């Protein structure tokens, strides 16, 4: 109960239910009715209330994101996007959801029934677990677990298992190729993601997400640009979003691991992906945009929300801009590019933190400057070394002119 009872929003509701002695200072209205020796009931009631709120907020968030993404991509491509159903097309995702629910649910004969059903559930459920640990405001968080960073990275990587299960259980060649490719990609991008996150942890000096925010005087996106870029790219890949949507490459694999899924099972994959986008954006805000911190004349929750929407917009911007990469290009980008870049970032940060364990303001500025120099230098050098390999096709200059020899 410890870490949860630290949370203000949990404690507030709990104390309005329970007659516990320690609660009297938090209580505003005197409406508590559950006696102290039955406090587990109020604990469960409060937990269920917040679970209900968080799950529904996530689901509504997905609906809004689907609408916002389609509108915004439309604007990025100089068209309108959905605009017919409701004001500004706001009800379009509702219509989509109803359509998906009423579609026929097909199970292939060759499928492994249990795993086939479990895979989409496994895609969605872990994502719900990210939302409670994120600090949305100075006091607004549900639980502050001491290993938040590790927890978040661990939970976000479960979806690769789901993808593999879906691909395997479908009993379909396209699905299994898509699933295996997806897992290869997801596992490769785990590594630069984790190493970049280690850079954040080194600067914060703690694995707790609240501490990560508290210790970010300069937002990490400015303080360690190399780590930010690698983390951003790696998490785009983790989300299976364009330009890394190799898992469901329509032109090559029909729809990858989702080929055989229909109706609400397909809807769950869809839901899981969009929810993961929201959760991942919240993580990036916490790690790299100093979470809820900002000038105090605006409430910290508003700051968090603004940054959150901004990061989601960056993901949408990527999707509207970049074409899909080939699988070999993706793998070489992960192993030859991002892996080394994130290692360089970690090394430089670790050295500087070793010299100045508790940096003052001036020292922080110097560290930022060094980080930016390292950022440009390493990107330049790696670009020089890798760009022919990354594009995958070396064009040989021919001295022979056809037709003249």
């Amino acid at each position, binding site marked *: 109960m410890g870490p949860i009872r630290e949370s203000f929003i949990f404690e507030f509701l709990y104390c309005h239910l329970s007659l516990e002695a320690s609660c009297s200072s938090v209580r505003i209205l005197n409406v508590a009715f559950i006696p102290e020796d039955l406090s587990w009931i109020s604990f469960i009631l409060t937990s269920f209330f917040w679970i209900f709120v968080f799950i529904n907020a996530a689901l509504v968030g997905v609906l809004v994101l689907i609408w916002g993404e389609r509108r915004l991509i439309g604007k*990025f491509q100089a068209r309108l996007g959905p605009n017919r159903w409701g004001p500004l097309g706001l009800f379009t995702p509702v219509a989509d959801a109803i359509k998906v629910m009423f579609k026929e649910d097909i199970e292939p004969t060759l499928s492994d029934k249990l795993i086939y059903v479990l895979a989409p559930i496994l895609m969605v459920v872990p994502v719900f677990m990210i939302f409670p640990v994120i600090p949305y405001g100075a006091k607004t968080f549900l639980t502050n677990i001491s290993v938040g960073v590790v927890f978040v990275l661990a939970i976000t990587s479960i979806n690769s298992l789901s993808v593999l299960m879906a691909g395997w259980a479908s009993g379909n060649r396209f699905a299994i190729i898509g699933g295996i490719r997806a897992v290869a990609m997801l596992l490769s991008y785990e590594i630069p993601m984790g190493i970049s996150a280690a850079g954040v942890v080194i600067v914060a000096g703690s694995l707790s997400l609240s501490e990560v925010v508290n210790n970010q005087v300069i937002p990490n996106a400015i303080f360690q640009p190399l780590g930010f870029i690698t983390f951003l790219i790696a998490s785009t890949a983790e989300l299976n979003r364009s330009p890394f949507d190799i898992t469901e490459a329509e032109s090559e694999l029909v729809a990858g691991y989702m080929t055989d899924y229909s109706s609400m099972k397909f809807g769950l994959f869809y839901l899981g992906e969009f929810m993961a986008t929201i959760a991942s954006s919240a993580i990036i805000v916490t790690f790299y945009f100093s979470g809820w911190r900002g000038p105090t004349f605006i409430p910290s929750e508003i700051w968090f929300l603004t940054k959150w929407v901004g990061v989601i917009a960056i993901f949408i911007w990527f999707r509207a*801009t970049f074409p899909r990469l080939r699988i070999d290009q993706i793998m070489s980008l992960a192993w030859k590019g991002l892996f080394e870049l994130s290692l360089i970032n970690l090394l430089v940060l670790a050295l500087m933190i070793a010299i100045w364990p508790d940096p003052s303001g001036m020292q922080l500025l110097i560290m930022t400057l060094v980080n930016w120099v390292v950022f440009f230098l390493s990107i330049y050098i790696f670009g020089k070394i890798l760009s022919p390999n990354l594009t995958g096709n070396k064009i040989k200059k021919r001295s022979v002119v056809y037709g003249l020899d």
Partner: protein
Amino acid sequence: MFGIGLLKGLLTTLKNLLGPVFTVQYPNKKVGLIGALKFHKKTPFEFLKTQPSEFIKSLAGLHEVPEYPSQATRFRGQDFNWFEDRCTGCASCAKYCPLGIIKIETSPSSRDQKEGSSYDIDVFDIDIGRCMFCGLCVEACPFDALHMGSGFERAHEKRKGLVIPVDELRTAIKTPSTWFRPQMENKSYKPREKESEIKDSNDIGRHEQPSDEELTERWVNER
């Protein structure tokens, strides 16, 4: 430097985001209050007084105003414009039609009965369902009576609805395409706008229609 190309791509889409939208919301566009007032050319008070429900809708951005795509004047539409007073009932159009979809029935004219130069049109059916819009009938017409139209809203549930009867040809708003009469483009003529409807058949076509005296000269005195 590696990554410059990516940034350029991001900049291109950003320009699109900030620039104008390409889409034309045919047939109806949902507008807010400002757009509605601009369309109706009213002050907010007048608009509230005349159409209160539409006023509330426009506050939510749900007021609908018609919007048409800008259309090339030489666009060959799905209807035909026919100027009866230019038509002599010679049935050249029916003869030239490669598909034989124009059906003309005439009777001796009440107008020029003595001369016998023209006929009254009783039936003039054009079966649009089989038309390929080649425009040979328009080219064939010696008196420039028949023109390609400029409309494109002729969806019907039954094949019968695709036949343009003579009454419809008579009563239709005449905004012909300039496909075979490009000289009309000099008169700042815009199809699909009711203001540019051609009411006087003298305004269209290559020939001035001969007056009664000229006809008498040509058909009576010279013989």
